[in-house]
C-alpha cells in the first residue's frame, strides 16, 4: 500500500516537477494569490475567468495551473482579511475576526506569517490525506451504481443549499435552474433535440464555461460595483519582512501548536463532505477553537489561535474537496464544479476509473499540490510586500481588465458570439441571483452535474422498472437516502420545534 503510494507520488512528481509543470504551477499559485487578494472575486470566478488562458497547454499542466489558482486563492484571501478587514473571499471571513484586531495591535507581520504557516500546514495535511484516501475511495466507489451516483449528487446539492441559511429555498431553485439549463441540447439517450429552438449553436448544449464565467466573473463584478467597490480609494499599506516585528514570537507558535492539527482535521472533513467546503470548514474550525479554549474571551480581540484555526481549516478543506472530485467525479462547491468543467473540457472524466486509466494525471495533480503548498508558503512570506502593493491598484482599474478577460475568454473558447452573449446574459442573471439571495454556485454545480444526474436518474428508473426501489434496496443507496432525508427533514424539524417553543413561551407569558 505504502509502496504503491510512494511509486505513484514519484510518477506524479516527475510530471509536476517537470520544467513546464513547475512553471505553470508557479504561475497558477501566483495568480491564485492575486485572485484571493481582490475582495468579492473568489476562486470559482478566478478559475472560470482564467480557463481560456490554459488553451494550448497539455491537459495535466492546464489542470495543475487551475488547481494552483484554486488553493492559492485561500492563501491570498487572508492578506486583505488581516490588513484591511475585508475578506478576499468567503472562506477567509472567519480569519477576519482575529486577523484584523491583530493588525490593529501592530501585529500584522506575525499574523501574516502565522496565516501562511497555518495555510501550509492545513494544505499539506489535506494533501497527505488525499494521497491516502482518494485511491481507497475510488476503489470503494467502483462498485457504485446509478442510484448511488444520483443520491450523491442530490446530497451534495442539498447540502450546498442548506449552507444558505434563510435562503435555502432560493438555493434549491438555483440548483433547478442549473438542471434546466443543462437539458438544452441533444438528449444523449434518444438523440432528440431539446430547447435548441432550431439553433445549430445550441445542439451541443449551453456551454458551461460561458455560463460559469458569466455567473461568477461578470455577476460577481457587477455585485462589487453595486456595493461601490469601484469608487473606493485604494488602501495604501506598507509592510517589510526585514522588520524584526514582522516575525511571530515563540509564544505564538507554542500556543497554536494543537490548533494547527485541530483546524486541519476539521477543515479536511468539511471539505470532503459535499456542499460544505472551505467557508463552513473555516467557520467550524474557528468556533471549535473558541469553544475549547480556556480563555475564549480573548477571541475576537486579536488572538493568534483565532486566526490559525480558520486558516488551517480552509486550506485543508480546499484539499479535502478534491477527494470527491477526483474519486467520484462529483464536485462539492462552486470552485470545484468549475474545475470539473475544466476537466471535462480537456476530455478527462473524473471518477473511480480516472485513477486507474490516467494515473499520471491524478498523481501529477496531487504531487503538484505538495509542491504548490511549498511555493505558496514561500510566496506568502517573502512576497507579502509585493502582494500588498497589488492593493494599491484602484479597483476601478481592475474592473475593465476582468471584463475584457471574461469576454475575450468566452469568445475564444469556440469563436462563438452566441456564447459571448450567453456570458453577458449569465452575468446579469448572476448579479441578480447574488443580490436577491440565490446561489450561482448551486446553478453551476447543477449545470455541470445535470447530464450525469439525468442519466443516473433514468437508469435507476429503468432498472427498478419505475419503482425507484434501488434507492433503498442497495446498502450504500439506503445510507445515502437516509442522509438525504435527514438533510431535508432535520432543519425543517428544528425550525418547527423552535417555532412551537416560541409559541408556547408566548402563550405562557
Amino acid at each position, binding site marked *: 500500500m505504502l509502496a504503491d503510494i510512494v511509486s505513484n507520488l514519484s510518477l506524479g512528481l516527475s510530471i509536476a516537477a517537470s520544467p513546464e509543470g513547475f512553471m505553470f504551477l508557479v504561475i497558477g499559485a501566483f495568480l491564485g494569490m492575486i485572485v484571493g487578494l481582490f475582495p468579492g472575486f473568489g476562486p470559482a470566478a478566478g478559475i472560470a475567468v482564467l480557463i481560456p488562458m490554459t488553451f494550448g497547454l497539455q491537459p495535466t499542466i492546464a489542470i495543475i495551473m487551475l488547481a494552483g489558482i484554486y488553493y492559492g486563492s485561500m492563501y491570498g484571501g487572508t492578506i486583505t482579511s488581516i490588513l484591511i478587514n475585508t475578506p478576499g473571499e468567503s472562506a477567509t*471571513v472567519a480569519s477576519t475576526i482575529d486577523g484584523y484586531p491583530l493588525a490593529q495591535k501592530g501585529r500584522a507581520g506575525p499574523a501574516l506569517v502565522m496565516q501562511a504557516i497555518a495555510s501550509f500546514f492545513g494544505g499539506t495535511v489535506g494533501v497527505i490525506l488525499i494521497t491516502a484516501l482518494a485511491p481507497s475511495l475510488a476503489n470503494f466507489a467502483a462498485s457504485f451504481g446509478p442510484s448511488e451516483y444520483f443520491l450523491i449528487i442530490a446530497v451534495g446539492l442539498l447540502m450546498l443549499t442548506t449552507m444558505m441559511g434563510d435562503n435555502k*429555498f432560493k438555493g434549491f431553485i438555483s440548483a433547478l435552474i442549473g438542471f434546466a439549463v443543462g437539458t438544452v441540447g441533444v438528449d444523449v439517450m434518444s438523440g*432528440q433535440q431539446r430547447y435548441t429552438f432550431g439553433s445549430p449553436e445550441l445542439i451541443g448544449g449551453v456551454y458551461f464555461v460561458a455560463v460559469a464565467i458569466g455567473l461568477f466573473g461578470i455577476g460577481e463584478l457587477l455585485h462589487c460595483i453595486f456595493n*461601490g467597490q469601484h469608487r473606493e480609494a485604494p488602501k495604501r499599506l506598507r509592510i517589510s519582512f526585514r522588520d524584526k516585528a514582522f516575525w511571530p514570537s515563540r509564544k505564538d507558535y507554542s500556543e497554536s501548536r494543537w490548533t494547527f492539527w485541530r483546524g486541519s482535521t476539521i477543515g479536511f472533513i468539511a471539505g470532503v463532505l459535499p456542499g460544505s467546503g472551505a467557508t463552513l470548514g473555516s467557520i467550524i474550525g474557528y468556533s471549535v477553537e473558541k469553544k475549547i479554549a480556556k480563555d475564549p474571551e480573548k477571541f475576537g480581540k486579536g488572538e493568534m489561535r483565532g486566526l490559525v484555526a480558520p486558516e488551517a481549516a480552509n486550506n485543508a478543506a480546499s484539499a479535502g474537496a478534491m477527494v470527491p472530485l477526483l474519486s467520484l467525479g462529483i464536485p462539492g462547491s462552486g470552485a470545484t464544479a468549475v474545475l470539473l468543467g475544466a476537466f471535462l473540457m480537456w476530455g478527462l472524466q473524473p471518477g473511480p476509473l480516472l485513477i486507474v486509466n490516467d494515473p499520471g494525471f491524478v498523481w501529477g495533480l496531487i504531487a503538484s499540490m505538495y509542491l504548490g503548498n511549498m511555493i505558496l508558503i514561500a510566496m506568502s512570506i517573502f512576497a507579502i510586500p509585493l502582494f500588498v502593493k497589488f492593493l494599491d491598484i484602484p479597483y476601478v482599474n481592475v474592473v475593465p481588465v476582468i*471584463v475584457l478577460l471574461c469576454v475575450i475568454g468566452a469568445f*475564444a473558447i469556440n469563436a462563438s458570439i452566441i456564447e*459571448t*452573449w450567453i456570458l453577458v446574459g449569465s452575468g446579469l442573471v448572476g448579479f441578480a441571483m*447574488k443580490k436577491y439571495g440565490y446561489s450561482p454556485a448551486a446553478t453551476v454545480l447543477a449545470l455541470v452535474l445535470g447530464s450525469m444526474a439525468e442519466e443516473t436518474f433514468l437508469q435507476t428508473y*429503468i432498472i427498478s422498472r419505475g419503482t425507484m426501489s434501488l434507492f433503498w434496496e442497495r446498502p450504500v443507496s439506503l445510507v445515502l437516502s437516509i442522509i438525504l432525508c435527514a438533510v431535508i427533514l432535520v432543519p425543517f424539524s428544528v425550525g418547527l420545534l423552535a417555532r412551537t417553543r416560541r409559541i408556547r413561551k408566548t402563550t405562557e407569558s
Partner: protein
Amino acid sequence: MKKWFAAALLLLAIGYTVYGLNTLTLVTSSGRPAAGFFPLVIGILLIISSAINFWGDFHEWRAERLSGQRPVHQADPEAEAKADALGVDAHAIDGGPEFGADVAIVFCYLCVFVAIMPTLGAFLAMILFMLAFLTTFNRKHMLSNVVYSIALPGFLYGLFKILLNASLPTGPLGF
C-alpha cells in the same frame, strides 16, 4: 425588483415546462422515459418552487409597503449564511450604499462592447470599452486612462491571438 425577478423565474419555469410538453416525447413506445421525462420533472419542481418563492417575495414586499420600512440593503446570501454562523449582522459583512445606476452603465457598456466586437474587431472594441469605462468612472486621470486603454487591450490581444493562438474577431484594420 426582487419580486419581479421571482415572477420572471416563475414565468420562465412555466414556459420551460409548457414548451417541453409540446415539443418533447415523454415516454417511448415501450414505456421507458424519453427525452422529455427529466425536463418535465425539473419543470414541475421549478414551477412549484418558483410559485412558492414568488408568493413569499410578494408578501415580503407587501409587508414592507404596509409598514413603510424597507431594508437598507439586500445582503449577499453567502454573507447571510456566514453572518448566521458567526453570530454577527450580515450588513456588517455585506452592507453599505448601493450603486445600481453604475451597474446599469457598466452592463450597457458590456452589451455595446460585445455587439461591436464582430464588426470592429476585438482589439478596437476592447480599446473603446476601456476608454468608455475609465472616462466614466475615473475622470481625473485622463492621460493614464488613454495609456491604459491602449496598453492593456494590446497585451491581452497579443496574449490570446499570438501566444494562445485563439480565434478573435478581426475588424476593418485587420486586427
